[in-house]
């Protein structure tokens, strides 16, 4: 749905741009292509890493690691698994819901989801390309710690 809106928006703006200035529009498309091609090697590598990781770390394995009463160890594992995996949200939320049903704690799930979304070890090389090493590592480390803060608050509110 959102992708469709994105496409419509891009098409309408591209048309407006073309009607106003053909040369500028051509330049915009060239820039679009150039910036895409610029990150293509990293993109392709990330896609393969995600593929291998998802094949090795099945939902079953993940469930074994952070399910049940795993306590702090489970939370740390959840945070690490969340940081290195790149599961799209529409897979992660049903997975999280299933883990909850099979006995995982809210805190483990909260830390897993937050780390999953905010921390990206696999995409770090790409992030470094845009923000430099220090900023990228700092942002990811802070997000990692922040995942625990979220988990603790969720544990208090929902526990």
């Amino acid at each position: 749905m959102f992708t469709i809106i994105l496409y419509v928006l891009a098409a309408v703006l591209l048309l407006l741009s073309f009607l106003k200035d053909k040369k500028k529009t051509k330049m915009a498309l060239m820039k679009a292509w150039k910036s895409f091609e610029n990150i293509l090697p990293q993109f392709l590598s990330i896609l393969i890493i995600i593929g291998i990781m998802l094949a090795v770390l099945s939902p079953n394995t993940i469930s074994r690691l952070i399910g049940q009463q795993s306590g702090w160890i489970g939370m740390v594992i959840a945070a690490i698994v969340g940081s290195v995996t790149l599961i799209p949200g529409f897979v992660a939320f049903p997975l999280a819901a299933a883990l909850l049903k099979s006995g995982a704690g809210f805190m483990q799930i909260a830390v897993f989801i937050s780390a999953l979304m905010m921390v990206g070890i696999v995409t770090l090389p790409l992030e470094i390309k845009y923000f430099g090493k220090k900023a990228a590592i700092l942002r990811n480390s802070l997000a990692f710690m922040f995942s625990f803060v979220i988990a603790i608050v969720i544990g208090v509110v929902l526990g």
Partner: protein
Amino acid sequence: MKKLLNRYKFFIILAVINLGLVIIYPSIGKTSLSMTWSNTLEMLSVIPPIFILLGLLDVWVQRETMIKLMGEKSGMIGVTLAFFLGSAAAGPLYAAFPIAGVLLKKGSKLSNVLIFIGAWSTTKIPMLLFETSAMGWKFMLTRFIIDIPGIALIAYITQKALSEKEIKHIFEMAKSQI
């Protein structure tokens, strides 16, 4: 040709590893291949409009406008705009980095761009609806409410921890990306 090979070196190594997996552990290798393929298709379906918008943004929006909206002196407007841009977005986090690059190139404040990245990663509106249906309102709302100050704090600390020289270098890099 040699330059091209060098750029794609890491990708080629990974592709060979994956093919090796297919031979040694056929079930894992095949799952991995099909995951990679479906992820590639997904990426290719999300990416084109994002990069077209990015190109248009670069050509049409003047640096002065961006500096006013999201630059050093943009204050709350810049912060709000960064949150809104990130939250309204669709697509995986890695699609946000090129946009962040253009925002930097156009003169946005670094902390605002970091807020944009933070919002893109966790307070995405389409994802929130999905989260609610899977985890319930209480879980989603609690996370959302803590996320907002958290994202701002992470952005603020990251900006503060960098020296002026390092920040300057980030802006220099952004200029050479596109």
